């Protein structure tokens, strides 16, 4: 049981990395990877929301949608739950940790439209995971996102001071860098 969970975690973080392998959550990956501090904040917030969303949507699917045969409402209900969850997280963070709230700023509400969050919820259902497996997979996916974001931010801070042709500056070079990172991550396949 434990070893199966560990393998789900490792697959989610490295082999099927949400950003570099499954290509989910690109907007924040390119948009927020300019600076290392904001990348850390965004990564933490997304990891937390992904874990919460993975567990909540699993519960909704298992206890509401399936028993009442409402599976066709999956997309609508999941996105509403995620939007509500992000609002809730925003309120809690604002009350309990005002400093963190300041640091995350606009990134918090934007998590609703991060496709990694809805993506992990749908993938958990699709793969037929139970509650614990869903939680581990969601958390692993979040950590993978965090990891990719930090790597990218570190590289982009170096890119800023290097000489790049004008047309390649900003997003173009960021995508090519992401491509090279993705090739590096392909080296993890076969790990489990």
């Amino acid at each position: 049981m434990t070893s199966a969970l560990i393998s789900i975690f490792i697959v989610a973080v490295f082999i099927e990395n949400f950003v570099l392998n499954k290509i989910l959550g690109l907007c924040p990956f390119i948009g927020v990877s300019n600076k290392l501090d904001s990348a850390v904040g965004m990564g933490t917030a997304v990891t937390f929301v992904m874990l919460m969303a993975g567990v909540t949507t699993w519960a909704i699917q298992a206890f509401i949608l399936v028993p009442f045969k409402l599976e066709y409402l999956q997309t609508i209900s999941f996105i509403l739950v995620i939007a509500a969850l992000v609002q809730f997280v925003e309120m809690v963070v604002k009350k309990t940790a005002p400093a963190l709230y300041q640091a995350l700023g606009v990134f918090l509400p934007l998590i609703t439209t991060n496709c990694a969050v809805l993506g992990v919820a749908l993938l958990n259902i699709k793969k037929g995971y139970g509650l614990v497996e869903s939680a581990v997979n969601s958390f692993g996916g979040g950590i993978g996102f965090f990891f990719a974001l930090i790597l990218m931010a570190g590289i982009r801070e170096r890119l800023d001071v290097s000489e790049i042709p004008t047309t390649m500056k900003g997003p173009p070079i960021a995508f090519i860098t992401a491509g090279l990172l993705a090739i590096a991550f392909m080296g993890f396949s076969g790990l489990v």
Partner: protein
Amino acid sequence: MTMMQQLTKGFWKENPIFVISLGLCPTIAVSSSMTNAIGMGIAATFVLIGSNLFISLMRSIVPDKIRIPVFIVVIATFVTIIDKLIAAFSPALSASLGIFIPLIVVNCIILGRAEAFACKNGPVDSILDAIGMGTGFTLALLLIAFFRELLGEGKLFGHVIPFFSSDPALIMIMAPGGFIIFGLLIALKRHMDSKGA
């Protein structure tokens, strides 16, 4: 702005992918073959037309504060419709697009157009805008898919192309190829724009 301009601005000048850089996840994820690109493009255009029309019609009765949740519910409804339609009429396409069909809900192009255009303009203009943006999205997907399928598999729409098929670079249809081709294409677009200006 004339109706024609309203329609064609999305094709190139304000192309949602290459200029505004919205909706990147499905762009790179499903552009590994031309067939997938067309399927995704049509699905997204359908959702865009439906949501733009309805949001434009509702724009005066929806209170400003709750507009985003309302938009999301409208969009999610159309996504569910197209999801079920594709699953019923083309199971193969449904299988190869996978979770990227439900993920149209969080495609920033659709919410972006609702927020930036449909909630401020009339229904006719909104439909034209949706058709233009949807076509621009489809064209961008096809352009990326053209290079990826040709270089990665030596095929176009599944048909074998001689010369390219002898030793294809498999990496191009995988995630890294998508990132690299996309990066090169936006660099090219910028280069052409800077020459033209």
